[in-house]
């Protein structure tokens, strides 16, 4: 029997002078993750982009709960998205997508 996989959902605000799309934000985090922790670390993270709200400039990533610290450090270490200066800010971390959406619903 396979065990239930525990995951964490991270809401991230993308701040920069240019409009970015979800793939660009994901690539920036992925590059940062592989730079900091290598391919082995990246494989443990099970990082995945769930959604990107262009209007709010807000991305939601999913990762393994065991690799949460790795992913958070990688997100904060991002200084460039699509070769443009940018800064990624962690807004909320939650165990379910539903509760993350509830918590971030009222945020600008």
């Amino acid at each position, binding site marked *: 029997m396979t065990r239930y996989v525990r995951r964490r959902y991270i809401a991230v605000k993308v701040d*920069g002078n240019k409009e970015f799309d979800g793939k660009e934000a994901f690539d920036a985090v992925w590059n940062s993750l592989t*730079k*900091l922790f290598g391919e082995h670390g990246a494989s443990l993270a099970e990082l995945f982009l769930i959604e990107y709200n262009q209007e709010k400039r807000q991305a939601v990533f999913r990762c393994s709960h065991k690799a949460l*610290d*790795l992913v*958070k*450090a990688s*997100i*904060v*270490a991002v*200084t460039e998205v699509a070769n443009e*200066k*940018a*800064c990624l*800010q*962690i807004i909320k971390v939650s165990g379910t997508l539903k509760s993350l959406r509830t918590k971030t619903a009222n945020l600008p």
Partner: protein
Amino acid sequence: MKFYVDLHLCPQANNFSYVNEMVEKAAAFGYKAVGITMSSNTTTEEIQKIKELCSKFEVDFVSRIDLAPKSAGELLKNLRDLRRKVEIIAVECTSKQVARQAAKDRRVDLIKFPFVNPKKRFFDAAEAELASGSSASLEIDMASLLTLQGFRRVVLLSSLRREVQIANKAHVPVVLSSGADDPILLRTADDYCSLAYLFGMEHSEARQAFSKNPKAIIERNRMKLSSEFVAPGVYVVRRGKS
């Protein structure tokens, strides 16, 4: 809400639009107090302007000066001249002699080391013991972790990991600051705490390094600079009528 302090913002003090942008961002990120680096030629008018700017964003302004003396003698001279003028004095130790003098001098609040050259990071057990006796804290600029890449960042992380362990063993407070000279390098305190995971700091420990430790330095120095201060441990509680 936590009282987060960023003791090291380093915009050019005479470029007010830049200072404004950085203070605004720091306020938006939830910092309650910011330390802005002054140069020796910063005028009192400029300091007053920055104070007003900070009060506009409801952020407490902390004046700070960074010294980078070449010798212990130069450090002592600078401390004599500046100690009563600014709230925070940080010393960047570029030689072992300066590092030892800064660690044992009670007038120094923060000791820091150049992040580009690992051979010039002199924070060892002896340095930590001196620092714990004089209540100096070890300052780590987080912006350097964002600006460095590859091998240089690896070396820095390894040095920081060792230094944090030494500081904890000798009970030397660690102060985490942004060290940002560009608004794009500024992050929330919680985000910086996540980054501190890279050099082995626990999240709670990192939060303390962003709140309790810098707050204690500010309160201690403000008390010392106030007219109520007489000597260490002796304060004016009440004045009689003349």
